[in-house]
């Protein structure tokens, strides 16, 4: 495909009416999507992982703080659709189906904060009340999970009890940022939709003029 000024000029002069029509249609499509998109709300909260003190292997006199489970490992386990109980799925998503489980995992956005010892959860679902209920239930699940890891670390420390390990300290999981609802509806990004529809119009015009050229000749 040769691109030059004359070709471009001829093409623009020849197809500007079609371009305008397609562009208006695409913008209309974009605005329709913007106004009729599902009413998504967002809830955010952050949790600090349980921490344990361990005796450093390199220098036995030194004591270090570690997390009872690494943030990344926990994050990965949260993305398993089968990792949630039936009751949780009933309360939050209405019914315990495989599709609902996958939808739930897709509604979650998880990130590590601080030095990887704080996990932030962001949940996006339809309906303000539903997302609040889900966030509360989910926070309970997360805290139970993390405190389970905390108990495990305690037991492990008792089994390996030596003189040096007697004064080790432990820290339970805690909620750092409590559940916070979005100010209102989370609308789709208008700027991206507009740019997207303009670009779509340009691409469709190119496509249709190529089709016309191919079949009219």
């Amino acid at each position, binding site marked *: 495909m040769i691109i*030059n*000024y004359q070709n471009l000029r001829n093409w623009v002069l020849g197809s500007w009416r079609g371009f305008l029509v397609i562009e208006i249609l695409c913008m209309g499509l974009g605005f329709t999507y913007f106004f009729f998109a599902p009413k998504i709300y967002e809830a955010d909260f952050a949790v600090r992982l349980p921490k344990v003190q361990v005796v450093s292997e390199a220098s036995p006199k030194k004591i270090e703080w570690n997390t009872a489970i690494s943030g990344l490992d926990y994050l990965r386990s949260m993305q398993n659709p089968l990792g949630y109980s039936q009751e949780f799925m009933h309360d939050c998503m209405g019914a315990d189906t495989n599709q609902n489980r996958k939808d739930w995992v897709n509604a979650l956005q998880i990130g590590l904060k601080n030095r990887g010892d704080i996990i932030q959860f962001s949940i996006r679902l339809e309906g303000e009340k539903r997302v609040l209920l889900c966030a509360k239930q989910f926070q309970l699940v997360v805290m139970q999970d993390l405190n389970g890891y905390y108990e495990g670390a305690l037991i492990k420390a008792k089994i390996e009890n030596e003189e040096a390990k007697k004064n080790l300290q432990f820290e339970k999981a805690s909620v750092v940022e409590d559940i916070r609802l979005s100010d209102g509806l989370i609308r789709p990004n208008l700027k991206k939709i507009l740019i997207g529809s303009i670009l779509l119009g340009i691409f469709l015009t190119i496509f249709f003029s190529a089709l016309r050229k191919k079949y009219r000749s």
Partner: protein
Amino acid sequence: MNSSIPSRGECVIALVLGCIVNSLIFFYPIPVYYFPDVVLLLYLAYKFRDLNQALSPIFFISLALLLGYYFFSPEPPQTEFQNNYLVSLKPFLYLCVLAIYCKNVPQLDLKKWLRIFLWIYPLILLWNLFLVHLDENASLLQLMTRRPYFIFENNFEITLYLNCFTALFFIFGQR
């Protein structure tokens, strides 16, 4: 006389121009980070008339990457700032431009300009320090801790300076 070696007069003119630009940027806060893109845009608009070449697949690949990253990168939670800077996507944009304009590169004798830049840049930095001394009445000790600049922040300019040196020394072989 070798035309790639600048005369003394040209060097002095370039130095004076550089000092004027530096003083303008020093005293009036102009958004300088748009300069390179504005220059590029002006060049693209100027050379648009001469466009005449086959469109390489590189253009479509980089366009797909650019649009893909722009439209499909995840939105942050509402409690975090939206990242509106497209700096990380700029390379794809530049690749697209290169794929369209690679037959229309600027016909400029780089050797001469590289030489001039290598000579005048340290002097412009000294000029910048002098301006700081004028403006803040800074002592020599305070000036030692400054990081003088020409147009941008120091970090970017040192890279450019080193690249100019490398190009002149190794690619053009002017030792």
